[in-house]
């Protein structure tokens, strides 16, 4: 587009523009829209969708928190500032937990990233695979495994107790930090691996040449270069930890956090204003973090990249460090595998804690009583995934390639749910779609909408990345040759991004199948989901059966990834004959 190829002449004095030129942009874009019916139609639909399913629910949360039943009543905020423990405690607990998990998760993520990207430890492919495992499983799998292993009567707890006579409690802050770190460090890993790979090795080598020691190089060169990435990882993990619902409700113990309290306030006692207030308390810090990231951190982030990484045989670490890192990674991976292994083992036991004989009963239950949960989840995720994927690309296409008034606003609004914790989205949906004209509670549609719109920011970001691979001249050619918006999008853009889109869909499907925090608010008698069933079983302390659900969910996700992978490679091989 114009920003890329064209070097623009220096800014002219804005005062020299006539009024007509100042308003000319919007006016011209509006007149253009009037002539481009296809684009106009699509825009109207997209704007309506975003307004209905992103903006409106969030607005309802705000409204409910200070205007419950149509009258101004900020009781809960007043109580918050008066220091009422049931509002203050979860607020600060969430912040403390978020801060700790941001630190530990970033440290673990950085260790993985550094070992794989810079130190070239052996078996890095295996380590990477293990590190992605938590991203495709329901987050509270970790909490469940932690109870099985480290709970008051967990496997490890028992052994330690028998040998050393020591007991501890995993419930509360320590357990939460442990489980959230294991569940979410991959986010930091993914972010930092890219950053570390992008650092030009010659920078480090230059430091060696100048006689700096390895440690000094790491502290003075590598770390500062990776700093913006580290900052981003910290903020991201903070926000994810704040929004996590699954782990705290399972292993939180006496440690209350905002998500769980909001969930209890609404599902437990139908105190909507209280729930909405807790949601806002949750939203404020996450929104702040995103503002910080967007307007402060992003400005500093261009220090790192000096172009393509130069392949180099000289590594930033000596053999000693490499093996130390290898050992650390083995330990961490071992812990992750142990946690997952525990869930699998638990799923095949009769009655956890009493009868550890192996059985298929739990799976029989899952596929008999729980069959419809299974079917619902797979069906709804399978419907939501293509819709979300295509909508994401469509919006990305609109905001990156098309000119229309309000483009920036649409971009912002459609990305907004990125900063909104799932439980807040869920509460918003509950508030927004329980009354005419859009009464969706109890339907499959509301779950679909949650699936699609909660994940939309990721889909749009992915879509924008895919579109970057498509030369703008290609879609411009199509419209130049007379194709309207729909034809250009459907016949040219979509087929070109299809392989990337299918790859992205696997992840999208996984997040739908494993999601809990937003959908837990909108599931109904007819439309129950596997994650909610898992939650109920954990809630009822039926750990073996909960573990069976966990295994089934992970199996579904892996199967979906496999199927889409095959689909993509077949698609690409057919493309191959076309010379791609």
């Amino acid at each position, binding site marked *: 587009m114009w920003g890329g190829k064209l070097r623009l002449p220096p800014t002219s004095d804005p005062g020299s523009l006539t009024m007509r030129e100042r308003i000319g942009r919007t006016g011209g874009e509006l007149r253009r829209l009037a002539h481009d019916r296809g684009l106009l139609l699509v825009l109207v639909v997209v704007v309506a969708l975003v307004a209905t399913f992103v903006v409106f629910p969030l607005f309802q949360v705000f409204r409910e928190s200070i205007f419950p039943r149509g009258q101004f009543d900020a009781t809960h905020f007043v109580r918050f500032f008066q220091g009422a423990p*049931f509002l203050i405690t979860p607020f600060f607990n969430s912040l403390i937990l978020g801060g700790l998990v941001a630190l530990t998760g970033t440290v673990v993520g950085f260790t993985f990233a550094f070992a794989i990207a810079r130190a070239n430890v052996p078996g890095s492919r295996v380590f990477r695979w293990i590190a992605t495992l938590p991203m495709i499983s329901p987050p509270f799998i970790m909490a469940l495994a932690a109870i099985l292993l480290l709970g008051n009567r967990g496997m490890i707890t028992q052994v330690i107790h028998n040998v050393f006579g020591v007991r501890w409690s995993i419930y509360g802050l320590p357990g939460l930090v442990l489980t959230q770190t294991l569940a979410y460090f991959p986010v930091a890993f993914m972010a930092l691996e890219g950053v570390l790979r992008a650092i030009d090795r010659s920078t480090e080598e230059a430091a060696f040449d100048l006689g700096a020691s390895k440690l000094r190089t790491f502290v003075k060169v590598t770390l500062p270069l990776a700093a913006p990435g580290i900052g981003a990882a910290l903020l991201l993990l903070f926000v994810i930890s704040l929004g996590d619902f699954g782990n705290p409700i399972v292993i939180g113990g*006496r440690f209350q956090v905002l998500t769980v309290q909001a969930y209890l306030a609404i*599902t*437990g006692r139908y105190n909507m204003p209280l729930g909405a207030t807790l949601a806002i308390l949750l939203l404020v810090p996450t929104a702040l973090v995103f503002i910080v990231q967007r307007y402060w951190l992003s400005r500093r982030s261009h220090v790192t990249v000096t172009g393509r990484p130069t392949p180099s045989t000289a590594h930033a670490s000596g053999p000693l460090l490499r093996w130390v890192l290898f050992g650390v990674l083995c330990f961490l991976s071992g812990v992750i595998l142990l946690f997952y292994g525990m869930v699998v083992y638990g799923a095949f036991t009769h009655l956890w804690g009493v009868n550890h004989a192996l059985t298929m009963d739990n799976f029989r*239950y899952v596929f008999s009583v729980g069959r419809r949960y299974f079917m619902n989840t797979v069906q709804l995720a399978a419907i939501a995934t293509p819709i979300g994927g295509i909508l994401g690309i469509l919006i990305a296409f609109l905001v990156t390639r098309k000119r229309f008034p309000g483009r920036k606003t649409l971009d912002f609004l459609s990305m907004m749910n990125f900063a909104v914790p799932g439980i807040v989205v869920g509460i918003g949906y509950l508030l927004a779609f329980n009354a005419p004209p859009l009464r969706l509670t109890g339907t499959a549609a509301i779950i679909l909408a949650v699936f699609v719109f909660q994940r939309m920011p990721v889909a749009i970001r992915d879509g924008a990345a895919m579109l970057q691979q498509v030369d703008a001249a290609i879609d411009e050619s199509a419209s130049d040759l007379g194709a309207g918006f729909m034809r250009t999008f459907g016949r040219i853009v979509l087929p070109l991004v299809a392989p990337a889109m299918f790859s992205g869909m696997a992840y999208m499907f996984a997040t739908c199948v494993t999601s809990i925090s937003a959908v837990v608010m909108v599931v109904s*008698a*007819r439309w129950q989901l596997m994650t909610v069933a898992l939650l109920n079983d954990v*809630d009822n*302390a039926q750990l073996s059966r909960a573990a069976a659900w966990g295994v089934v969910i992970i199996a579904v996700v892996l199967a979906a990834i496999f199927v889409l992978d095959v689909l993509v490679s077949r698609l690409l091989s057919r493309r191959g004959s076309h010379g791609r």
Partner: protein
Amino acid sequence: MRRWAVGLCALALVGVSALGQEVLNIYTAFDVDQAQTYVEEFENAHPDIRVEFVRLSAGALLARLRAEHPRPGASLWLAGPSDTHIIAAAEGLLEPYTASLGWQYLPEWAKCPDGYWSGIYTGFIGFATNKDFLEEHGLEPPTSWYDLLEPEYEFKVSMAYPYTSGTGYTRLASLVFLLGEEEGLEFERKLAEHAVHHYTSSGSAPATEAGLGEVAVGIAFSHDIVARAVGLGYPVVMSFPKEGTGYEVGAISLIKNGPEPELAKVFYDWMMSAEAQTLYQEWYRVPLNPAAEVHPEAVTAAEVTLVDYDFVWAADNRDRLSDLWQELTGF
């Protein structure tokens, strides 16, 4: 060229294929597997009706009815303490029904005078204590509410939130009836401060948690303690506070404007029958149909000291007490 599009459509079609069919939707406070027992038996007796149910804690169930009013997603509310049904009736969320067979045999205290709900079982709040724990510490099972405040039990007791769970609220109300409102709440505060390991949203979970050993004591209804812990083989012993304990009348009711009112009545009638309530044996519940068979291990009223439990007062004060409780305990 179009195969990708076909693939997408196929993917989408996987889903759309299973929508709608004439079924009865139920909200139940029974645990899933227990509800499944009754639902299966019912479906055997009525092969033309298929039942879909959602399991929710009683408080959550009430919350959902309020949220969904006036277009509820289910027609029948199965189980859960009568106080929650009383609140729902007062709020106009229920439909009266006195034509049921069971209406005649129920004593006055076990049914709504206006027919909004009928009792289908009773149960008593009790303590589920882990035997290994008792052995390790050389203790006897707690027999008094005050035992729970002893240092041995510090942060080792689990119980349900009063506002999410019928069991939890029955516990709170029982203490209020036993000690008076101020004292009762103060006692709960002390429990929260000194004894509670964590609160659960489900009422029956504490029994299993005691069985697992995750906590030393779980406070739950007697039938849940037997069904969820003792009966399954967990090392749990059940005991009751000598000062007196609360009890529930588990109830059934028709949801106002439910989508399948006629089907709901069929289930309602069936649930009142001796045949249905004999199924309680598997779960150690105490039936209210005098003709139903009772499991010999089920705890009946004769075995425990009861507080003078006023269901209507308990129902009327549920939100107020819950709010006070939250203010006081901070949970």
